[in-house]
């Protein structure tokens, strides 16, 4: 069974390729898969007839108790036969229905097959959770099938409606399954059925499960989605809305019925909703002019009848119910297929426009007639046998059953009436309508429908054989009396009389409606469609209101909310309960106080500054103050890096700020200023409080006490911080340099407007262009007038010395303050000085490489170091020490992690180079070009 499901899935994957190869003919090939399903089921007929289920179990997720437990009893066997048989025939029909150049054909074949596979899985699942998975899969695939034409609004809407309704029901059903499964301690239905809870618990679970079944089978109040789903192509309607998907709900009710029929509120719910659906559907079918919609409402009505009969829950009604499932699948699929044929042959499905089709396409009329006879319940059709059985079974029940019987008979009257309406509408000669032109129908187009119609006749004629096949299911209901048997002829029974009555009544009703033009519409107390519409509108409104309230699209607002939460929750906790440490010290050395004061004053003034440059300088001062505090703390590496970073930052700011206005703009308006300050102060206070409490609460010995020893023995270096970076916590550093590469790429892509500008390295602007008269407060660009020759020469002289120093820092960093980060920044500053002194030509002269290449090389070296260690049998980024003697240099102690540091170095250099190229050189170029353009305009 599992293999069959897998074959469906695999074929679905390759189906689009097959369609591309052979066009619509590929559907014949694809049809072999459901055909094989049918054949497989038929080989197990003997086993099933003996009442033995075919089982198969594969463990799937043992932690969840989820296993692929499959079980095919009589009911499942019947469903497999229908799913496979009807599926194969509908696919064969589709090979003629669609055109080869239909753009959606490949997808159709794939989704149709996937749907068939899901349906197959559904009906053979023993595990309820597995059943649910397949259940939802059918929902999703049916969504795709109904939305076959995504360009049509109606088709999209119908697909969405079907999806929402059935998924919602499916979720409720899952809850019901879980309730039952948790109680039974197993999710296998064969075990759950033996171990049912009682009372309100069971009732709640059943109501939830019924919600799923009723919504799937389009039973009131969920009926509305099925007629909408007629937006799908006709083969889809024939399969999903006759044989397969809508039958899933029926299947579930039939599956659970034998175990739960006696429990409240199973029977009343099914009988009441089923009867309402039957009337509503039947009456609506009588009012349709579109043949397909007529059949759709007819299906709704029939599904209601099936729910009633299967919900009645006795041995005989169960037998009648499954017989009806079989009969309905056969005749309804046939009828849908014939509507598709009529649609293709005449170009319309409107029964007001069709006339004389029966005379022009007699074979089609015969096929449709056979199926219609079955639907109306005329002998010797399958429909007749099934309805006889139902009537007979209900006749022998109690008072309630008799009421139900009256309903069923009334429903049959409606069925006969709309069957006649269908036949009359599709095939009759209408005196006041011009005869329709009918294109010839190929036998291969009609054959699938004919096979189904004949199968309906065969089931009727072979009723006793069918009875023997289906009886094991009915016998699951324990019954004292000897049961009913399906047969064509039971003699002159009351049931036969009632059948005759129903046919006569139906014919009368049809004629009455034709002649009198009865226009009464059946209004239900409340309409599912209206409720659905309201729910959707309400959800939309709620979403809009909620989004409008919370998603204001304002960055300060979002930040404000986050920060206020920070103040209220952790801040409140801090105030409420923390033990505040009593012991504290003012500073480690008084110098810390001095540095701290500088930082505090600079930060406060920076927040108040109105000019960009002032603010930038004050932030820089705060940064240098922090560097001072690092030194006093005993962190020379940090201090070095902080000094360098602050310097590079100032260079960057200057490069950008020269383009921006001097003052900050006046937004936001001043009134919100106090609020911002209040939030700022509160957050600052909470953070300070946390720093105080957290430090004071610290008891444990730091993890880093062992670092110095490890640094020397494993890392081969004396500078613990550097060894931590390149060895102990090298993974972190790896992540961080990756971030740097991303940031650099981002900067470049924000500034460089065209990719080819990135290659602009060696171009020297023509002399005329450089004659910019605009005063610049910093010597930038290639404007010869603003350049200081002395500065340029001095920087050229110093440049190599600085670079050499940076390389010294890089390699000494393992044992003394320095390392890749600091060294890279130093080298970057050397480049910055060159750029500031001589503009972008000077920068290109100093670094005639693309920043991206440097960044990439750095990342390559860093990752390469790690991979090399891996290849040599160590762990990723594990370092090794090498001691060797080099002439001139003497004894060299080398650690492989130095390579990693070289990678870091290159990336930092690349970052700074990238910044200088983007924020410096490219910006200059853009502004010069604009200046030239402006001047050219003025000249014109």
């Amino acid at each position, binding site marked *: 069974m599992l293999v069959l499901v897998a074959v469906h899935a695999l074929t679905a994957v390759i189906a689009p390729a097959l369609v591309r190869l052979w066009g619509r003919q590929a559907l014949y090939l694809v049809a072999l898969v459901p055909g094989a399903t049918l054949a497989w089921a038929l080989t197990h007929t003997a086993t099933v007839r003996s009442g033995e289920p075919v089982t198969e179990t594969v463990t799937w997720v043992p932690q969840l108790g989820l296993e692929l437990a499959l079980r095919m009893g009589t009911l499942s066997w019947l469903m497999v036969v229908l799913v496979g048989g009807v599926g194969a025939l509908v696919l064969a029909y589709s090979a003629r229905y669609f055109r080869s150049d239909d753009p959606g054909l490949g997808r159709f074949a794939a989704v149709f097959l996937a749907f068939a596979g899901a349906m197959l899985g559904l009906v053979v699942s023993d595990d309820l959770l597995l059943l649910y998975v397949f259940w939802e899969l059918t929902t999703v695939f049916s969504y795709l099938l109904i939305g076959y034409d995504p360009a049509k*609004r*109606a088709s999209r809407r119908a697909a969405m409606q079907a999806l929402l309704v059935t998924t919602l029901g499916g979720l409720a059903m899952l809850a019901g399954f879980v309730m039952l499964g948790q109680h039974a301690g197993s999710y296998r239905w064969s075990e759950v059925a033996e171990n049912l809870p009682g009372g309100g618990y069971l009732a709640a679970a059943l109501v939830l499960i019924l919600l799923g079944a009723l919504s799937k089978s389009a039973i009131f109040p969920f009926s509305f989605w099925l007629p909408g789903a007629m937006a799908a192509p006709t083969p889809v309607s024939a399969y999903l809305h006759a044989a397969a998907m809508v039958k899933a709900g029926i299947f579930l009710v039939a599956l659970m019925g034998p175990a739960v029929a006696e429990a409240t509120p199973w029977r009343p719910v099914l009988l009441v909703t089923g009867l309402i659906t039957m009337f509503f559907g039947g009456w609506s079918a009588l009012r349709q002019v579109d043949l397909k919609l007529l059949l759709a409402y007819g299906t709704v009505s029939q599904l209601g009848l099936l729910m009633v009969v299967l919900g009645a829950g006795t041995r005989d009604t169960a037998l009648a119910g499954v017989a009806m499932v079989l009969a309905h699948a056969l005749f309804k699929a046939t009828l849908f297929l014939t509507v598709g044929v009529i649609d293709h042959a005449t170009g319309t499905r409107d029964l007001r426009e069709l006339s004389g089709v029966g005379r022009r396409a007699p074979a089609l009329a015969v096929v449709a007639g056979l199926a219609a006879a079955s639907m109306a319940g005329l002998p010797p059709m399958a429909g007749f046998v099934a309805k006889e059985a139902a009537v007979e079974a209900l006749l022998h029940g109690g008072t309630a059953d008799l009421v139900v019987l009256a309903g069923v008979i009334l429903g049959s009257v409606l069925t006969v009436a709309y069957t006649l309406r269908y036949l009359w509408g599709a095939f009759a000669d209408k005196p006041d309508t011009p005869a329709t032109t009918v294109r010839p129908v190929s036998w291969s187009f009609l054959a699938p429908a004919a096979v189904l119609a004949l199968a309906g006749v065969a089931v009727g004629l072979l009723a006793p054989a069918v009875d023997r096949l289906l009886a094991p299911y009915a016998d699951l209901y324990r019954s004292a009396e000897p049961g009913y048997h399906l047969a064509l002829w039971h003699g002159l029974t009351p049931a036969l009389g009632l059948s005759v009555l129903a046919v006569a009544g139906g014919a009368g009703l049809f004629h009455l409606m034709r002649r009198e033009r009865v226009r009464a519409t059946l209004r239900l107390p409340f309409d599912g469609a209206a409720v659905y519409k309201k729910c*959707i509108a309400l959800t*939309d409104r709620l979403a*809009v209101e909620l*989004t409008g309230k919370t*998603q204001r*699209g*304002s960055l300060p607002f979002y*930040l404000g909310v986050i*920060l206020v939460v920070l103040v209220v929750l952790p801040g409140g906790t801090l105030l409420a309960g923390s033990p505040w440490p009593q*012991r*504290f010290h*003012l500073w480690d050395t008084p110098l*810390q106080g001095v540095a*701290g004061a500088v*930082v505090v004053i600079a*930060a406060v003034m*920076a*927040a108040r500054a109105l000019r*960009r440059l002032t603010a930038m300088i004050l932030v820089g001062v705060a940064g240098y103050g922090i560097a001072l505090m690092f030194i006093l703390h*005993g962190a020379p590496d*940090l201090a070095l*890096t902080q000094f360098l970073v602050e310097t590079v*930052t100032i260079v960057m700011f200057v490069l*950008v*700020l020269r383009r921006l206005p001097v003052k*900050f*703009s006046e*937004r936001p308006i001043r009134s919100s200023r106090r609020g*911002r*300050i209040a*939030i*700022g*102060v509160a957050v*600052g*206070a909470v953070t300070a409080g946390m*720093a105080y409490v957290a*430090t*004071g609460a610290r008891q444990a010995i730091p993890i*880093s006490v062992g*670092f110095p020893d490890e*640094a020397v023995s494993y890392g081969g270096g004396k500078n*613990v911080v550097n060894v*931590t*970076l390149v060895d102990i916590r090298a993974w*972190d550093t790896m992540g*961080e340099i990756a971030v*740097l590469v991303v*940031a*650099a790429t*981002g900067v470049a892509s924000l*500034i460089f407007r065209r990719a080819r500008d990135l290659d602009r390295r060696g171009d020297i602007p023509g002399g005329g262009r450089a004659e910019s008269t605009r005063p610049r407060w910093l010597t930038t660009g290639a404007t010869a007038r603003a350049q200081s020759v002395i500065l340029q020469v001095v920087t050229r002289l110093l440049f190599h010395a600085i670079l050499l120093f940076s390389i010294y820092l890089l390699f000494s960093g393992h*044992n*003394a*303050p320095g390392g890749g*980060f600091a060294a890279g*920044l130093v080298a970057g500053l050397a480049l910055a000085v060159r750029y500031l002194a001589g503009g972008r030509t000077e920068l290109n002269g100093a670094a005639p490489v693309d920043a991206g290449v440097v960044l990439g090389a750095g990342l390559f070296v860093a990752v390469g170091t790690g991979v090399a260690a891996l290849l040599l049998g160590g762990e990723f980024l594990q370092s090794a020490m090498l001691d060797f003697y080099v002439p001139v240099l003497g004894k060299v102690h080398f650690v492989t992690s130095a390579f990693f540091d070289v990678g870091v170095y290159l990336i930092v250099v690349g970052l700074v180079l990238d*910044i200088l190229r983007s*924020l410096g050189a490219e910006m200059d170029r853009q502004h010069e070009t604009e200046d030239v353009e402006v001047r050219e305009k003025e000249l014109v």
Partner: protein
Amino acid sequence: MSPNLTYVIVVGVLVAAGVTLLLERSLTRVLMGVILLGNGANLLLLTGGRAGGAPIVGSTPQEEMSDPLPQAMILTAIVITLGMTAFLLALAYRSWHLNGHDEVQDDVEDRRIMDLAERDEGPGDADAGTGDDDDDDTDTNSDRSLAASTDAGRAG
């Protein structure tokens, strides 16, 4: 461990100043807020470790060393702040170049939804009632309303 009050105060002030700037509209100010906040956070990390001599074996006895772990973390954080500063600066410049200012704008799509909420409408109301219309000509209308709210976003 006894808290160092100077650190606590400096952390508090840096965060307060940083947050105040962060809530501004001007991207340059936001960026300065980020830098100050970053410095505050770095110092906060530093308070988690003991102060002392430089963590270099040989130059400081081990028991007098400052805690190296927070330092390693802060070191990478400093450099990352540099990358982030560069990125935000580029962003501010780009914004100024395109719009003539470097302010953080309200999101246009969100403003559209707020407008809908004020008018008590749902998202689908615009094209409701077209029923089974198979063409999507109503889309042009929604484009127009998007353009209108874009203007509103600039003006507001």
